[in-house]
């Protein structure tokens, strides 16, 4: 075996690590691809022990073609990230198959590092980061082991430990580079079809039941840091898409409102906050009703929706402010027309209901309260599992089933208002959110998704009306119990989290909040770190805003300063500590040397002492005492601390 040829043990380790490298992708890949990959690894492991089973060049070529064919059938045109990951896994497996020499090892390890980077496209949790760190150590350990002249017997634990040390030493450099490396805002090219990764979130339309699906998800939608106090729950309406158009079943935005100068009057003080939005496939941002200052680069439409570019599928952090009480003023003709359009699913009994209300009341405001009264007094129930509704769901919900979720209430209420001639629209977004006392910020989850209604009244402009609050006021004040029962019978009313939960639940809650606080810092500092954050960090450190060039310079300098520091640490670790006896003897020789009695390299202590005494008979007593003690301590069997001290004293008292 030439030194460039790999032995069995590195190949075994390489195969196992390769398996671990791809393992987190198994869930994302087609089962057949995963199985094929595992088969390749198993074949490799088998051939390590039975080399004659190793496929020849032609068979290997066949396997390659078969793998490529499989990938191209499963993912035509290699669309989407999973296809690319599948290709990468195939490459990794096949390279491993033909891995014989040191050069191949490097290729596999480099491919491995690359594979690690692909995991982060799918998952950004701390657990995955830990996993990736372990694999970086494993891969680097392989390189370390391969750089040795001969490998040690047994498993290369020593190399792994050294790899862990190297990784630990690389961490400060990593942090400096991470925080200072000039950020280029992506994307560099259009991501196109890769956008299709399913992420939960609101969509720009609702059908009855779409939000109640979303609400089962405990995933975080966004987190909010307020500049001052957090507003009370009843004011925490996070405005998302505004829906104008309905066909009776489905509500959608219709033609988007043009962006333009949007004004409203308000006497309330502005509330400032920063939102860290989790990746979603949408291009709108959320703000409290109604937004005032917008994030940089965002636009506000006439119905107060914020949209922004380049916010899709990434964690996005933005600053905004809102005023929580407002008057929107006059209604444009277009908005009036859109706010009164009706689907053709209106039934006579709906008309009759509204006509009854209209007859008994004076103004629009009174009619609105009459309608809310209707929802409150009739036996309506708030439930996560509404019964299935037929072809005319609104009618059926209003008069028959009467069990529904926020979107049932909001959409039917809006339709009734339009029937009564009051311009109305459905607003979707999030309501409430949980305050985390550990980080003093608000967590808004998918389970806080909500839909409400807005009506236009002459005296207050567009006015938020939440019919759900009429039926279930607890929904607005508190969030759901976390363990939503998926299999509850249809129509069972929802139980809300009560303030007096038992102790264990409280502790669990505390733990969850702690975990989320850690997660939030993780998101704020690592995942959400961007050019903006970089600039504010620099300002915090007192550097002001640096140009790209100065930033790069600062980065290089900081990194360059770290290396000598590390060197110092390493030097300290293996500084040579002479043993005290040896140290005393060296000192003794040094003192003699100053008097011209230099010990020759070939002279042992006895010969040297003899020569010293011959030249300086006056020193005989001291020199022989010291040398005899030294010989006894250094070469004799005893290692008496008392004798060692005595030698030390003798040498200290020795003057030539």
């Amino acid at each position, binding site marked *: 075996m030439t*030194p460039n040829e790999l032995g069995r043990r590195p190949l075994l380790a390489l195969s196992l690590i390769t398996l671990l490298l791809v393992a987190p992708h198994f869930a994302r890949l087609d089962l057949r691809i995963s199985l094929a990959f595992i088969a390749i690894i198993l074949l490799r492991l088998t051939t390590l022990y039975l080399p004659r089973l190793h496929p020849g060049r032609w068979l290997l070529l066949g396997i390659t073609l078969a793998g490529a064919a499989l990938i191209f059938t499963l993912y035509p045109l290699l669309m989407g990230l999973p296809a690319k990951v599948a290709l990468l896994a195939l490459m990794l497996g096949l390279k491993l198959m033909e891995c014989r020499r*040191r050069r191949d090892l*490097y290729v596999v390890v*480099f491919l491995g*590092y*690359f594979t*690690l*980077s692909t995991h*982060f*496209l799918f998952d*950004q949790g701390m657990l995955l*980061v830990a996993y*990736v*760190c372990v694999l*970086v150590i494993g891969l*680097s350990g392989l*390189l*370390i082991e*391969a*750089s*040795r*002249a*001969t490998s040690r017997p047994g498993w290369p634990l020593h190399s792994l430990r*050294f790899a862990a040390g*190297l*990784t630990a*030493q*690389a*961490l*400060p*450099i*990593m*942090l400096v*580079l*991470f925080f200072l*490396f000039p950020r*280029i*805002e*992506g*994307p*560099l*090219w259009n*991501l196109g079809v890769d956008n299709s990764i399913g992420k939960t979130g609101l969509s720009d339309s609702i059908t009855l039941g779409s939000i109640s699906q979303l609400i089962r998800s405990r995933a975080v939608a966004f987190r909010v840091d307020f500049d001052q106090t957090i507003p009370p729950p009843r004011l925490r309406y996070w405005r998302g898409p505004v829906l104008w158009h309905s066909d009776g079943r489905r509500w959608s935005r219709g033609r988007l409102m043009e962006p333009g100068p949007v004004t409203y009057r308000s006497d309330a003080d502005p509330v400032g906050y920063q939102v860290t939005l989790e990746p979603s496939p949408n291009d709108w941002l959320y703000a409290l009703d109604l937004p005032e200052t917008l994030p940089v680069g965002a636009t506000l439409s006439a119905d107060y929706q914020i949209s922004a570019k380049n916010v899709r599928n*990434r*964690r996005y952090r933005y600053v905004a402010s809102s005023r929580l009480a407002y008057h929107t003023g006059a209604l444009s003709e277009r908005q009036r027309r859109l706010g009164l359009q009706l689907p053709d699913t209106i039934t006579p009994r709906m008309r009759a209901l509204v006509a009854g209300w209209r007859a008994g009341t004076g103004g629009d405001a009174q009619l609105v309260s009459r309608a809310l009264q209707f929802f409150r007094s009739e036996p309506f129930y708030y439930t996560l599992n509404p019964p299935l509704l037929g072809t005319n769901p609104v009618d059926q919900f209003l008069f028959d089933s009467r069990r529904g979720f926020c979107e049932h209430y909001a959409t039917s209420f809006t339709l009734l208002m339009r029937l009564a001639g009051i311009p109305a629209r459905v607003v979707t977004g999030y309501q409430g959110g949980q305050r985390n006392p550990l980080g003093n910020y608000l967590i808004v989850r998918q389970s806080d998704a909500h839909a409400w209604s807005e009506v236009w009244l002459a005296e207050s402009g567009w006015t938020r009306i939440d019919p759900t609050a009429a039926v279930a006021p607890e929904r607005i004040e508190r969030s759901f119990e976390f363990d939503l029962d998926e299999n509850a019978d249809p129509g069972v009313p929802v139980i809300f989290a009560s303030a007096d939960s038992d102790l264990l639940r409280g502790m669990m809650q505390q733990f969850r909040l702690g975990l989320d606080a850690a997660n939030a810092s993780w998101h704020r500092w*690592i*995942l*959400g*770190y*961007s050019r903006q954050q970089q600039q504010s960090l620099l300002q915090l450190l007192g550097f002001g805003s640096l140009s790209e060039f100065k930033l790069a310079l600062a980065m290089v300098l900081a*990194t360059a300063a770290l*290396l000598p520091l*590390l*060197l110092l640490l*390493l030097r300290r*670790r*293996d500084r*040579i500590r002479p043993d005290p006896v040896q140290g005393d003897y060296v000192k003794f020789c040094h003192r003699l040397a100053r008097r011209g009695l230099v010990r020759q*390299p070939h002279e042992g202590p006895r010969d040297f002492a003899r020569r010293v005494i011959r030249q300086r008979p006056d020193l005989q007593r001291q020199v022989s005492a010291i040398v005899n003690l030294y010989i006894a301590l250094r070469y004799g069997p005893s290692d008496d601390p008392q004798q060692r001290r005595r030698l030390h004293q003798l040498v200290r008292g020795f003057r030539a």
Partner: protein
Amino acid sequence: MRWQVPERFIRRCRGDARGGATVGAQQIYIIPTRYGLGFALLLLLIWIGSVNYANNLGFLLTFLLAGLGLVAMLHTWRNLLGLTLRPGRSDPLFKGQQARFEIQVGNPRDGERPGIRLQLAAHEAVAGDLAPRSEQRFTLSARAERRGRFSMPRCILSTRYPLGLLHAWCYLELDGEALVYPAPGPRTPATGQPSYQPSQQGDKGVGADDFVGLRSYRPGDSPRQIAWKVQAREQGLQTKQFGGDRADQLWINWGDYPGLETEARLSALCRAVLDAAERQQVFGLRLPELELKPARGDSQRHAALAALALYGEPRP
């Protein structure tokens, strides 16, 4: 990948008065290997991917790997720093053979230093892993192209440990020296008779021909002359003595091979010396400026060959 630093800029690690050398901080060169360049390319790829997907964890991984590369640079450099080197002795050899230079490499540090390679200019490298606080002997060979003193050529001490991404090396100039005898020539018949001279004394039991008796063994006696049969009878170690040395005094003369060029003549003389030594003969050697008194044994053989090796070279 081997890089040639221009000769005049080379910083060498030289031996001190006692011949030992210590690798200093300023004498170490370091450049990325082709794997190192590949690694840089990999980092660029991951970085571009991270920019494109605005993936901060991708950035984190890029920078962790970049940090690993930088830290590895420090460790590669430190792997050579402070190594001590002492040239060992090298056996004499004939021209055309491989000279073997020994270098004692010492690691005074408490940590191990794996992957240390030593290499003489264009020859095969020798690699080893040095345990903490240990010494290891590396033997380097180089072909002896000419007779005389063969000083150890410039030697390259290098390492790629820990990650193999960087190649650190330093140029060693140590005082090792091997003596190269002339290559033995074909057996050229000497002109004129070999001059045998009867010696004045002889037959004292140090000849090679006639058995004259046994004496008790003294340290240094050739094993070939030990009377093994006597030893087998458990009568102690006895040395056989031979007579006949009186007549066999051979003079090997420079003048015996006229018409040959210097090197060819030295080769012929070398062959004659080897033949005489083989026959356990007493021989003397006469060169134009040097005369070696007749004697026999390994030391005479070496003295004669050394005289041939150093013929024409200035005396040290």
